[in-house]
Structures are given as structure tokens and as C-alpha cells.
């Protein structure tokens, strides 16, 4: 018969076929990663190419793993995104330039990257030998596009390959300028960011630098307009940021885009040398000077409207607003911000991962095939952060655990307990298929999502109370009835005999 023979009825299927099964889900899945008693399935990770690459790089041996809980088909970890993130300090990075000069004009920035261990490969953007992907493998971990005016990339790089690179987990830093070409605009719109047109610039008639030649496009951005996320923008400083370039806007409903640096309320984006005949593309605080994107696979992309922003000249120039009485700063905040941004975008900062997830009834050490309603359960999760190239326990006090069956039935804070976060709670008096969910989504950090599916079953027939106090009258009535019947039978038989004898 074509199916169901005695052995493969339910829940006995082994995991091994699942391995082959996933190959079509993602081309880059190579296997499974055993994490403690539970099996972390490859589903989320399949999306997370960088995690996979990281694994390859370290030469970890991955093998399909089975645990008792899994084979009894009750317990499984749905996903653990970000598990084993790449330690990126040594990432191979491709730098695309408009012309080789940029390497010199932006030497401070590149040197800081090289000092931090990045392996930079400089190419002009129209180099015909360019290639990001070869035989299905990414040749680089990171991509820097410092070629705003490119109209067509050379080699086999184009917007599609770059988006594929992002979807595969690669990180991209893009710097544009008023000479922005179509590919970068397209790339921006693929990421949910809309650059203004070529030849436009962000203009601010109130916050421009004293050295501005008169178009009011050399903007002094207030550090107050930076995103309040130290992992992305670094420590808060007073130093203003010098910016000259094209503006962007983003859909405020897009949950993935971060407004890293916005213009002031008096800024707008238009052609500096034209009379304003149309409503400017971006006005006021909507004008984005620097925008970021953390994709759902935690690939990071930063768009800067200004290539000059990263230049040595801007790093070292003194800055002063042209408005009278404004303070003069001997140096801009550009260098610190650029460094912080590069740390974030190339995953040196704000990278978290989920380690072992365990759960079991209090007083036991292994998870049962199915929990019973109102069990007292202990859940613990290891969350680690990448710091200086090493994974260290993450320190956060706002991590929540939800126990979800469509809606959360329990929502509670996880408490730090040694190297892991754990909590004890009582399961609800509701049966069904639940998930332990940790969904930790904070600005500047990787999106942390772990969900572990468990079944909660009702009481078994032996688990009900045997002798209920309120039922004692009924027990009494049963036994008295039995006794009564017995006596009655005796009396009845006896009487009958007597009558007969009479």
C-alpha cells in the first residue's frame, strides 16, 4: 500500500529526511545545529545566510541530531534566529569606488576599518571583473559602495545581486551624493528608502556651516537629530555632524528602516540651483540624511546621503553654524559617527544570539512529551552578545517570555540567572499547542526570536481527584443502599420461609 504501514503511523518519522527536505527551502542550508536537548531547526537559519557562512568559516561540524523529546514529536524549537552569528571583525569586504582617488580622500575611514581587521578589496564600480557571487557562494561578507554616480556596475554586480547579497545575509554600506545614479536609487527603493533625484541636495538655510559657499548645502546636523541608539550611533557627543549630499525619505510604516540621522525642521531637499516649482521631495524632519535597514535576516544596510560625510576633510574640519553666536567646534562628530555606523553595519556591535533553550517542569530536568495543564514550568534561555569578537552573556533587564496559543496566555520578564535567563511560571488551565516565545526587538540590536513549541494536555484519567469531600454523602448513600438491600434480602427470604412454615 502506498502509505501508512505499521511503522510510520505518527510521529515516528526520523529527522534525516528532513535534512534533504530543506535543500529546496534555501540553497545554503547545510545542516542542523545541535543546541542542548532541543533541536534547533534550520528554518529561520536557512534565511540567515551569514549565520551559515559563519559556521562554515569556523569549520564546525554540523550533524543532524535527534533528542528524545523530538522523536516523541512533542517538542521542538521552531526557530532560533541569529544562532551562531558571524564574528565579523575579519570579514572580507568589497569596496566599490567611483574613482581610485576616493581611497585617498577617505583614507581615515578605510584605515580604521583595516585596523579593525577587515580585509578590504578596492575596486572601481565599473571594473568589468567585479563579482559578488561566484558559484552560489558569496565572495565577500560586506560591501561598501562609495560610488554614488555609478550608472552601471561593472562585472556581474547589479542591484539584483546586491539585494540578493543582502537577502543572503551580507551587510552593505552605501554612500550617495548629489550625483546619485539610478542603481543606487533603485537599491534604496529595494530597501524601502527613496533617494531624491540626481542633482538635488539637502538644503537648510538655518543650519549650514560657515564655510558654505552660498547654496546652503553644507549642513551642520545637530547630534540631537541622531537616532537614540548607542549601538548604532555611538556615545552621545556634542559635536555636530557635517553633511553635504542628497536627502532620503522612508515610509514611516516600514518597521525595518531606521532614521539614523534626520535633517532639522528647517531642512528640505531640492535642486540647489533651481527655483522651487514643485513641492520638495523631503521637508523638515522627514528628510533623512543617514538611514539604516536591518532586514529580517538581520543583514544590515546603511545609506548615507553624503559621501563627503566619510571623507578625511569632513572628519577633520572645524565646524560652526553660520547663525550668529553659534559655537565653534574644532572637529566634527563625523569620525565617531562613521566609526560607530561601520561597527554597527558590519556587525561588530549590537549582535545577539540565542543559545540553549531549555524548559522542564520544576523539579525535573527533562521536558515531558507533553505538559499537563497547571504544571509549574521552568524555562531558560541563553542569550549572548558579540563583544570584541567573543560571545559573552548578554545583559538586559527587559527580556520577556510569552506563552502563546494564538494569544499570549502568560507574559513575564525573564530574570538573569548566571549565564542564562530563566523564569518559573504556572501553565494556564487551558490545553492546546503552545509556544514559548522570546521576541526581543530593540533598536540597534539584532532581532532576537526564539520559539519553542510544546503541547499542553488535559489531565489524564488517573490524575483526577479520587475522593472528593463533597461526594461523601453519595458514597455513604451507595454503601447504605447496598447494606440495606442485603438486609432486605435476608429479611425477605427469612419471612418467606416463615410464611411457608405457617
Amino acid at each position, binding site marked *: 500500500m502506498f502509505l*501508512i504501514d505499521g511503522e510510520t503511523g*505518527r510521529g515516528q518519522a526520523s529527522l534525516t529526511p528532513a535534512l534533504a527536505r530543506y535543500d529546496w527551502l534555501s540553497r545554503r542550508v547545510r545542516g542542523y545545529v545541535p543546541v542542548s536537548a532541543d533541536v534547533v531547526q534550520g528554518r529561520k537559519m536557512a534565511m540567515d545566510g551569514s549565520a551559515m557562512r559563519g559556521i562554515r568559516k569556523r569549520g564546525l561540524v554540523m550533524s543532524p541530531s535527534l533528542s528524545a523529546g523530538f522523536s516523541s514529536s512533542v517538542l521542538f524549537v521552531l526557530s532560533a534566529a541569529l544562532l551562531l552569528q558571524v564574528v565579523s571583525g575579519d570579514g572580507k569586504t568589497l569596496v566599490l569606488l567611483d574613482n581610485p582617488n576616493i581611497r585617498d580622500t577617505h583614507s581615515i575611514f578605510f584605515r580604521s576599518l583595516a585596523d579593525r581587521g577587515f580585509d578590504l578589496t578596492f575596486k572601481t564600480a565599473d571594473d568589468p571583473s567585479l563579482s559578488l557571487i561566484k558559484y552560489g557562494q558569496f565572495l565577500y561578507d560586506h560591501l561598501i559602495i562609495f560610488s554614488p554616480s555609478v550608472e552601471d556596475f561593472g562585472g556581474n554586480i547589479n542591484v539584483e545581486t546586491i539585494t540578493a547579497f543582502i537577502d543572503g545575509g551580507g551587510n552593505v554600506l552605501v554612500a550617495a551624493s548629489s550625483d546619485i545614479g539610478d542603481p543606487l536609487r533603485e537599491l534604496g527603493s529595494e530597501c524601502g528608502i527613496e533617494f531624491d*533625484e540626481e542633482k538635488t541636495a539637502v538644503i537648510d538655510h538655518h543650519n549650514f556651516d560657515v564655510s558654505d559657499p552660498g547654496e546652503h548645502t553644507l549642513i551642520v546636523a545637530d547630534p540631537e537629530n541622531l537616532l537614540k541608539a548607542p549601538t548604532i550611533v555611538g556615545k552621545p557627543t556634542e559635536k555636530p555632524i557635517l553633511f553635504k549630499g542628497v536627502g532620503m525619505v522612508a515610509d514611516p510604516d516600514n518597521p525595518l528602516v531606521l532614521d539614523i540621522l534626520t535633517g532639522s525642521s528647517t531642512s528640505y531637499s531640492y535642486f540647489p540651483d533651481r527655483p522651487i516649482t514643485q513641492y520638495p521631495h523631503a521637508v523638515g524632519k522627514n528628510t533623512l540624511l543617514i538611514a539604516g535597514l536591518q532586514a529580517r535576516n538581520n543583514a544590515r544596510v546603511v545609506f548615507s546621503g553624503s559621501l563627503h560625510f566619510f571623507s578625511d576633510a569632513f572628519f577633520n574640519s572645524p565646524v560652526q553654524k553660520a547663525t550668529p553666536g553659534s559655537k565653534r567646534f574644532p572637529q566634527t562628530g563625523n569620525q565617531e559617527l562613521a566609526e560607530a555606523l561601520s561597527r554597527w553595519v558590519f556587525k561588530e556591535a549590537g549582535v545577539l544570539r540565542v543559545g540553549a533553550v531549555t524548559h522542564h517542569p520544576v523539579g525535573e530536568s527533562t521536558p515531558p512529551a507533553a505538559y499537563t495543564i497547571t504544571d509549574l514550568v521552568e524555562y531558560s534561555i541563553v542569550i549572548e552578545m558579540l563583544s570584541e569578537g567573543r560571545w559573552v552573556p548578554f545583559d538586559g533587564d527587559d527580556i520577556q517570555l510569552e506563552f502563546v496559543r494564538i494569544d499570549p496566555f502568560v507574559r513575564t520578564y525573564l530574570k538573569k540567572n548566571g549565564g542564562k535567563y530563566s523564569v518559573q511560571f504556572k501553565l494556564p488551565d487551558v490545553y492546546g499547542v503552545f509556544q514559548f516565545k522570546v521576541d526581543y526587538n530593540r533598536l540597534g540590536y539584532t532581532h532576537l526570536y526564539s520559539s519553542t513549541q510544546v503541547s499542553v494536555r488535559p489531565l489524564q484519567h488517573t490524575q483526577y481527584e479520587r475522593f472528593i469531600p463533597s461526594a461523601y454523602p453519595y458514597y455513604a448513600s451507595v454503601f447504605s443502599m447496598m447494606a440495606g438491600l442485603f438486609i432486605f434480602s435476608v429479611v425477605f427470604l427469612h419471612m418467606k420461609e416463615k410464611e411457608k412454615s405457617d
Partner: protein
Amino acid sequence: MAEADGKAGCGRQGALAVGLSQPAGWRSLLSITILFLAWLAGFSSRLFAVIRFESVIHEFDPWFNYRSTHHLTTNGFYEFLNWFDERAWYPLGRIVGGTVYPGLMVTAGLIHYTLNLLHVTVHIRDVCVFLAPVFSGLTAISTFLLTGELWSQGAALLAACFIAIVPGYISRSVAGSFDNEGIAIFALQFTYYLWVKSIKTGSVFWTICCCLSYFYMVSAWGGYVFIINLIPLHVFVLLLMQRFSKRVYIAYSTFYIVGLVLSMQIPFVGFQPIRTSEHMAAAGVFALLQAYAFLQYLKDKLTRQERQSLFYLGVSIAALAVFLSVIYLSFIGEHLYNYAKIHIPIIASVSEHQPTTWVSFFFDLHILVCTFPAGLWFCIKNINDERVFVALYAISAVYFAGVMVRLMLTLTPVVCVLSAIAFSSIFERYLGDDTKRENPPSEDSGDEDDRRNSGNLYDKAGKVRKHVSEQDKAEDGLGPNIKSIVTMLMLMLLLMFAVHCTWVTSNAYSSPSVVLASYNHDGSRNILDDFREAYYWLRQNTNEHARVMSWWDYGYQIAGMANRTTLVDNNTWNNSHIALVGKAMSSNESVAYDIMRMLDVDYVLIIFGGVIGYSGDDINKFLWMVRIAEGEHPKDVRESDYFTPQGEFRVDKAGSPTLLNCLMYKMSYYRFGEMQLDFRTPPGFDRTRNAEIGNKDIKFQHLEEAFTSEHWLVRIYKVKKLENREPLGHKPRVTNTIPKQKHTSKKVRVSRNAAAAGYRVM
């Protein structure tokens, strides 16, 4: 078929029996032979499906029963009792042990266990497939016993032959149809037999047997409610007819108490027998019977004066009781009404809950439907306690069968019994008395008739004693020719009945519905195995814990064949969950995607019959999904949106835009517009609805086609994850304030294409 067999056997043995001067042993040998043949014929005629297709479980519910039985045999009874199935009704889960009638699974499990104990190693699937045909034989025997109690042994044998092959019963008991009804009809008939026996004897022994049989019935099928209402009705009518006796009192008092206690042992039934309105009649009759018996007792003891005052007291107590019960029942009735109101769309959507058409009466019962009123008339004419019962049985079953087509099943046995009585009486009249009057048997009938005639002696033997006077009167004017003509006619009818039964069984009731067959012009058969193909694909290619959304009809099959988690299935206990799935199917893609994400759906499975013209597909069921969804979400889903302004349900260009863009439509017709089935029709021509589809350009944002079976019957879609990025929904703005000349060289285009190709290869 069985009828013919039975008759032939009857005749041959009969001739022998005459020759041997009718020793009592011959009679029982003959009966046993006929019953055995009936069993055999019933069993064989149920095997069409197995022979034509294979030993496979049919339809929908049997798949669940099979899966539970499998669980029972692999994990033992207690595991089964406590089975919490987390794969059904995701994420709610289902307590299987507490929500099934376990009789079927336990029976099959027990047979399997016994066979294996005897080292007959059969797979549980084969036990399940052949359980219903085997039980049809037991049904024949219990019908034989019941009819024997009611009328004569000849009628009983006829009844057994009838029930063995009647299509109304075969429809639920062909091989592979592993459903509750398959064993429940046996339990029903056997309980009735034991009840009649206990009414006749007034013996506690028979009543206890009846209770045990009733217990088996309760464990097997929800239709036990029919018994627990019919028996009190019988007792009540007996009281009204002044046929009260000690026998009735003993039988009913014992039955009610023991039966009540036993029925409450089934977890699914639990406290229903003392709580719900459909069990209240039994309790009321029990109280009435006690009161009646008490009054009877007092009547003997008291004087006339005392009796009068007692009468007033009794009346006032009765009035009070009626008052209280009215309050109680109105409360329950309200509850019942609400229940019905909420569930109407979902109950109404089930085809077997539709009212029965006249045609299906004839189709399922053929000649019996015409003769059974005659049998009823015979019974009423010669009324006694047990014939009151069969009359009530017939009347109530006819009523219920008219209400709902699936209850045809409860009507069928009584129709067989009464028709057998009618036929038996006719044969008795037109055949039997020749020998009784010692006329030479060869004088008025042919050789064959003679043999049949002698065979029917046995009908008479049991019966003659009762109705001798009537028969004597009636038969005076009958000539031998009339007798033979009538006999021939009757035999012709029976012959046609047997032919009809076989034909119906073969053509209508032997399709497994998981495997379809189509016939070519030259009569050769095409097997369409799309369902199993698709389920097997799911089983092999999806994650073990993947959740599959489909309309509830396919829930059990997905669980049974694909072994994947389902959201809703044929155990339609949670209307709001089904409505949520209905809403997802009837909404546009983005709304549906939100629902599907909320329910963690990985795959969506639909049935689409447009390619081969299969009419039972999801588009044809679609309005029910809309209605059920509307019942729970009246603000989001409106049935009228799915009709054209003229009130038509059309899938072509004139169809309503809501329909043409809803998820179910898009999934059904995705890429169907590219498909030209033959040269006479345009591309995208739906053969089921005979229309060219209205939306040929279907694109999905959140779904992707994962699998489509050979004849497009089953289509499976994968629900995509949220997009990695969220691109802008529009092109970047171009104002052309400074016109710009485009310069895209041809060379770059080529390289771009090459890059794209390279990516795809990756």
C-alpha cells in the same frame, strides 16, 4: 443476490426436509444455512470497492477512525483514552479519548488483538477495512432474531436476506467504510431484539442483556439517542393502550437504571443522560411508570373514597411536575435553539444533513419502500406488545429519515423487517396452505414454484397457530392460477430487488472517494489518484511539524495520509476556528496572510476540479465557507459581495470582484488561465462550472505554488515568510526638472542578464 441464494437454498433444503418428515433439527440447519448464505452474500457484495480499487480506507471520517484505531493498537487502550492529539485543530488540539465513541476502535482493536493472539498476523488496516462487511452479517442475524420475535421464522429469514443486501445499509458499510454506523446498526438491531425479548418474557436476565447491548451501542454511535427515546415511547404507548403489565414494569425499570449507569461510563457521553433534553423522555417515562405501578398497587388496596382523594393529590403532583419540567425544558430549549442558530451554516453545509428526496427512498430501499407499509399494516392488525414497538420504530424512523438523509440508515432495518413480514404473509397465503390442505403440490405450480412453495412451509409453521381462522376465511376464493401468478409476481419483485441492490452497490456506494475513477468512451477505466499523490507529497516533502490549512473536509485525510498538523477537520466542534479558516479563504491575500500568520500556517491545500470536471471541489463549496465566516465575522465577510448584482455566483468575467480576488479563487485558478484543455474551449476554461475564468492574471505576494497534482485536483501552496526587506511600493520619484539623458549600453544589459542567470544557477 443473497435473496436469490437464500431462496434457492431454502427450496432445495426444503424439498429434502419434506422428505424427511420435518424433524426440528432440519429447520434450524436450514435457517443456519440461509443465514450463512445471507452473511456471505452481504459480505461479498460489499467488496466491490476492494476489488476495483484496493484495500483502502474510504472517505473522510473513516480516516480519523482508522488513525485512532491505529493509535489504540500501537499504544494500548489507556493511551488511547488519554490521547491528546496536538496535530488536530492546531493550536487548540483535540482530546480524542473524550470526544469519540470508542466502540468502533475498541472493536477493531480487539479483533486485531485476538487474531494476532492466534498468530493470524493481519494489519490493522485490513481489520478496519473488512470490519463493516463482517458486521453486516451480524446485523443480518440480529434482524433475523428480531423479526423472529415479532412474526415468524420465515419472515425472519427474509428480513435477514433483505438487510444483508439492501443499499440503504450498504451505503454505510462497504469494505473500507470504517465508520461508526457500520457496527452501530448491528448494535441497534440487537438491542431491539433483546428489548422485545425482555418485554415478552419480563425477565431481568434478558433486560440486562439488552442493557449490555445498549451499552455497546452507546459506545459505538451517537444514534443511541434513538434507542433511549424509542424504548420509553414504546412503554408510554403501552401504558396508553392499557397494556401495562409486570413484564413491562420489570423490563423498563431495569433497562432504564442499568442502561443509564452504563451509558454514563462512556467518557464522551458522560453526564449527558441526566442533563440534556433528548434524554429527558426516558426519565419522565420511568417516573410515570413508577407512579402508574404505584397507583395500580393502591387501586387494589384502597376504597373508592380514598382513591378519589388520592386522585386529586396525584393530579396536583403531576401538575407541579409538569410545571417544573416545562421551566427546565424551556431553559434547555433556549440553549438548544442558540446552539442551532450558531451552528446552522456549518450543519447545513454537510450534504448528509440535507432533507431526503423521494428518489433516494426508492434508490436505497427499492421495492421494500412499497411493501413495508403493508408489513406495518399486518403488524397493527395483529397487534401485541412487541408489534406496538415495531410500529413505533417504523413511524419514528420514517419521520427522521425524511428530515435528514443520513438517518435513512435507521429506517432501513425496520423497513427490511416489515417488508419481510409483508412478503412472508403473502407467500404464506399464496403458497403455504396448499400443503396444509394436503393438495397435491404439483397440481397448480411448476417445478420451481413447487420447491419454493415447500420451502415456505416454515413460514407457516411458526405462524399458523395464531391466524388459522383468518386464513381459512380469506383463502376460500383463491384459485390456483391466481396463486401462482401472485407468487410469480412476488418472486419477480424480489429478483428485481436483488438486481437493483447489486447495481446500486456497485455503482453508487463503492467509490472510496480518495481514489476517483473515470471512464473513457470505450469503457476503460482511468484511476485518478490525485488525493493520495498530494498527501504523499506532503508526507515526503514537508517538515514533520508543518501546519496545513485546508477546508475542514480534508482535515482527517491530511492527518491520516499525510501525517501533518491540520487546523480544522471533520470533527467540527469549534465553529469559530472553522470560521477563521473560512475567512482566510474568502478574504483577499493580504488579510488572509495575516490570519495565516496568526495561525502559523505553513501550507494551504485546496481541491480544484476545474480541469477534470470534479464537482465536489472547493469553489463549489466556497459559499459555505463564506457563510460560515460571515456567521462569526459579519463585518469583514458578506455573502452578497460574492454574488454578481444579479445574484449569481459566477467565476467568469462577470463574477464579483471580491470573488475574483479572494484567496480561494486565486489559489484555485493560479496559472489556470494559461492552460488550454482542448481546442474547442478558450484557455482557462473551467469544466466544472463551464465558464472561462474571469481572472487569468493571478499573482501571489505571500504564497507560492508548492505542488499541483497530476489532474490539478489538489493544489498545495506554501505560505512565504515575511519579506526580508520591505521595498517601496512605488518607483522613485522623477520630476524631470533637469531632463537627463539615459545612456544604457547594450553590453551592460547583456552582462546584467548573465548575472541574473548566474544567480539562478546558484
